[in-house]
């Protein structure tokens, strides 16, 4: 089945060609294509809803493990979708009070707290990783500790040279690492693109149809 592969190649070329060649017609088409694609992508949102519905619906039906939590999940999902539904003339949508309540008092605190929980994880990861087991680990330990100390006023007030050291670590090994890894990643991405366009990359669109 070659159709998906042809579509892939066509869509890829549509984006690439006008970027390098000055052909206004194709450029306009590729711009429209990008906006158009967002519509298609937005339509996928119910895939998630259906998948969640199947998994948790089954669990509720069978009274499987943790099924009350599945009820909570489905209830909150449906409620949030309804109060936020873009029908402003019947009082729903983004300015609906229930919607704002859910957004400000549930979604935001949950997101913010999940983000901040990293402080604990980074501390315990540092405790285990910053240990001079060998030369490589010693490099991680030394540069990491210098940077940590240079960020705290407590240390820099008595050891201002830490900031100079940190700047050097950032400007030299950190820059060099970032640059080297980034160039390599570009090569990898290009090779992957070629393999995909040639239809030989495993995983994506492989085979197709019934096998």
């Amino acid at each position, binding site marked *: 089945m070659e159709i998906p592969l042809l579509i892939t190649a066509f*869509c890829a070329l549509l984006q690439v060609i006008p970027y390098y060649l000055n052909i206004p017609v194709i450029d306009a088409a590729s711009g429209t294509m990008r906006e158009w694609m967002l519509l298609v992508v937005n*339509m996928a949102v119910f895939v998630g809803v259906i998948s969640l519905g199947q998994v948790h619906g089954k669990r509720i039906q069978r009274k499987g493990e943790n099924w009350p939590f599945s009820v909570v999940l489905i209830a909150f999902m449906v409620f949030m979708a309804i109060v936020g539904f873009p029908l402003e003339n019947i009082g729903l949508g983004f300015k609906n009070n229930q919607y704002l309540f859910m957004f400000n008092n549930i979604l935001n605190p949950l997101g913010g707290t999940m983000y901040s929980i990293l402080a604990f994880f980074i501390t315990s990861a540092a405790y285990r990783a910053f240990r001079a087991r060998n030369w490589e680990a010693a490099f991680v*330990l030394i540069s990491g500790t210098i940077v940590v100390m240079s960020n705290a006023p407590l240390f820099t007030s008595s050891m201002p040279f830490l900031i100079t050291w940190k700047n050097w670590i950032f400007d030299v090994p*950190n820059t060099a690492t970032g640059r080297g890894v980034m160039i390599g990643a570009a090569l990898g991405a290009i090779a992957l693109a070629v393999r995909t366009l040639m239809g030989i990359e495993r995983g994506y669109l492989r085979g197709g149809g019934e096998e």
Partner: protein
Amino acid sequence: MIPMWELIGVWTAVLMTLAIYSFLYGENPWYRLAEHIFAGVSVGYAVAFNLDYLRDQWVNKWSLSGTLVLLYMIAIFFGILWYARFSKKYFFAYRWTLAIIVGTGIGMALRTVIFTQFLNQIMAQARLSLWVPGDLLQSFSNTMIAIMVPCVLLYFWFTGPARDRGPMKYIEKFARYTMMAGFGAAFGYTVLTRYSLFIGRAQFLLGITPNPPEARMAFYVIAAAILITLFAKDHLFKKT
């Protein structure tokens, strides 16, 4: 006094915050509750948000001319094909839609990757001067970067016999040390950002301005409730 529903809001927010933090102790029903609420609310939010987007796009752009209307309809058609995956008979049809997305994605990558990740980085290398008059440190730093970057690049060398030749051993070792120092620095730097986030949450729990002061009482009460139930579950019931 703040209105009742605002007070409820503050208590809810504190409950959500602490339920997530309870994960630090271990997986438990409080966390499970927050986790499932999070999934439900965020997916519901995504539904509302995406539908709003589709509606706005229709009103402000795609409904304005005949061609655009047709394109919008085609988009809806390909959008519906996503759901072919759930059909036993036509499941393969989603691959057409997918091909559009992947193809455009690869095209976008081929546009920018060569510049942002490849050429711009090489140009930055080409702006290094190994000898900066009067600035020994800068000269040294530039020289180090000029050596480190190719070493890191060569570290990933995959194929061919040249890979196993003598000098590569040293290059590889030097590249590892460079990367370890670089990654260590990035790690250390992130500590600050993560702690500022946690400090922000802690300030919220303690009701320090600009956060609502009512949060503090909620913090004490809910934290106590969560801690007591966690300990009770672990120490009273486990032993029997």
